[in-house]
């Protein structure tokens, strides 16, 4: 099912024309309402009239996370406060949080985008749908909530925490859909195991997973354990929240709601746009946002835009899975290492739980990488009960890591339950190097 065929199946020419018109309008809007952008455009000797088609976008300046922090709290807000009906804030672990204000129209567009996503996953008004993103300043909870209500399904605002109660509700209410982070989905599966709730006692059939990167192996694991089909949903609060892009039944990339969020892929070093299909940093321009529009916002997410038509009938462009973050990227002995690469290896080893921790240190001026993984009780057996056998397993894992990362990592196998489970975004890296 397609929620809005007019927008989701538009011809490419019509889409580009619409994007061009909207881009001109949004540039004019920020020029008159956001001093930060007016100054930037004036410095570059640009006026809104120079932006006529979507191809003119490359003339515009970039916006970075730092720009948002420097203009904390309301410096980039374009609409008057009286028009703002909701304020979200992104996590501010490394400085000021990012404050994003939404007008009534913004919330309505967001709900529409979320409804497109859920419909694409197969959610209908007959579903009972549990939203297990955190409710609060984080956009996940309320964003998904509005979308479920827009579709007309029954929303269960479970939020995070109290997972045992949630697991019982999933069984008792016959909850058929869930939105949460993929790591929370695994945590939920573990909790159900603990409570003795089996797959055939629950009716989950659709999972909308996002807010952190995940892999195909993780998808298989979640699907097997919860008996549902898991779909990727992507978003970020600086642009809107979840539903900037969403998968369809083909599960070959996520369709971007590009009538509202225009995507570009750039080289993160030269900042030059990259040709279609190449991997680089994802950049978004909000084409219709009133509260806090952004021009060419650098997401720091690495991915590619996929060429070709999608058999599902949607014509809006697809983005690949996120392959890393420009700021999660660790440089270890001069080699770029992404935690997601380690994750992909961990998930190929059935002896280990789908959890890991990277510990980076510097010993005698040499970077060291240690990867901790956890034994799975159900895969521990008599062939593993000697230090020699455990060393063999460590070596097998270390070899696989080396072939993927191109550097040597020390492996540490931990007892079950000793690597921290996260209920929100997982943290997978401890960097002990004192480089700054």
């Amino acid at each position: 099912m397609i929620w809005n065929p007019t927008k989701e199946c538009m011809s490419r020419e019509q889409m580009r024309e619409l994007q061009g018109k909207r881009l001109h309008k949004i540039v004019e809007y920020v020029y008159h309402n956001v001093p930060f952008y007016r100054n930037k455009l004036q410095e570059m000797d640009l006026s809104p009239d120079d932006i006529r088609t979507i191809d003119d976008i490359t003339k515009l300046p970039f916006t970075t996370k730092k720009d948002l922090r420097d203009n904390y709290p309301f410096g980039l807000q374009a609409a008057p406060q009286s028009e703002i009906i909701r304020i979200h804030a992104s996590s501010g672990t490394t400085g000021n949080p990012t404050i994003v204000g939404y007008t009534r129209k913004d919330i309505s567009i967001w709900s529409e985008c979320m409804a497109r996503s859920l419909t694409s996953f197969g959610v209908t008004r007959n579903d009972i749908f549990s939203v297990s993103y955190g409710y609060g300043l984080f956009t996940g909870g309320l964003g998904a909530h509005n979308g479920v209500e827009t579709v007309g399904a029954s929303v269960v605002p479970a939020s995070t925490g109290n997972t045992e109660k949630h697991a019982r509700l999933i069984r008792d209410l016959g909850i058929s859909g869930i939105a949460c982070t993929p790591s929370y989905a695994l945590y939920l599966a573990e909790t159900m195991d603990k409570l003795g709730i089996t797959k055939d006692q629950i009716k989950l059939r659709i999972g909308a997973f996002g807010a952190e990167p995940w892999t195909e192996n993780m998808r298989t694991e979640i699907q097997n354990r919860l008996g549902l089909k898991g779909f990727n949903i992507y978003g970020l609060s600086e642009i809107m929240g979840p539903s900037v892009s969403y998968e369809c039944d083909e599960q070959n990339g996520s369709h971007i709601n590009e009538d509202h969020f225009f995507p570009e892929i750039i080289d993160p070093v030269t900042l030059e746009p990259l040709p279609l299909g190449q991997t680089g940093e994802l950049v978004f321009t909000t084409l219709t946002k009133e509260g806090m529009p952004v021009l060419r916002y650098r997401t720091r997410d690495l991915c590619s835009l996929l060429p070709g038509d999608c058999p599902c009938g949607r014509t809006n462009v697809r983005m690949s899975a996120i392959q890393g973050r420009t700021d999660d990227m660790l440089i270890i002995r001069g080699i770029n290492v992404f935690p997601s690469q380690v994750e992909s290896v961990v998930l190929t080893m059935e002896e280990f739980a789908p959890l890991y921790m990277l510990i980076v240190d510097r010993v005698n001026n040499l970077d060291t990488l240690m990867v901790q993984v956890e034994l799975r009780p159900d895969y521990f057996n008599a062939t593993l009960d000697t230090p020699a056998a455990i060393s063999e397993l460590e070596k097998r894992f270390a070899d696989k890591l080396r072939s993927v990362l191109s550097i040597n990592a020390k492996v540490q196998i931990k007892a079950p339950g000793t690597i921290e489970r996260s209920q929100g975004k997982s943290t997978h890296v401890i960097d002990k190097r004192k480089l700054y």
Partner: protein
Amino acid sequence: MTIRQLSIFIENQSGTLQKVLELIKQLRIQIIACTIADTAEYGIFRIICSEPDRACSELKAAGVAVAISDVFAVELDNQPGGAANVVGRFSEAGVGITYMYAFLLDGRGILVFRTDQADKAQEVIRKGSLRCLTEKELPVNA
């Protein structure tokens, strides 16, 4: 000819052994013999205990990495050279001992070990008329 042993993976950290022992206590499982194979980061805690099947499944359910394996428990002559005589027979037959530990049962020494070739080891035991302990003989007070 063999008895069952539990192997438990534990990390080298204060408190981890106690946690496992506490679980075993709560399950009312009696430990008859035990040993730890230690490395820098973890240990394999091996125990001969009462009700090994129940102990294994309950510990697994509690999230412990535990496995059950078959080991030989051979009775020794209580005199100098007792262990050498037993191990000697295996070496002569080219059977390697993977690991070994011992305990006393009613004043008799019992050598517990795993070999790298179980079939050949059984042949050595038969030919040498070595006496193997059975699980029924374990002093379980339950």
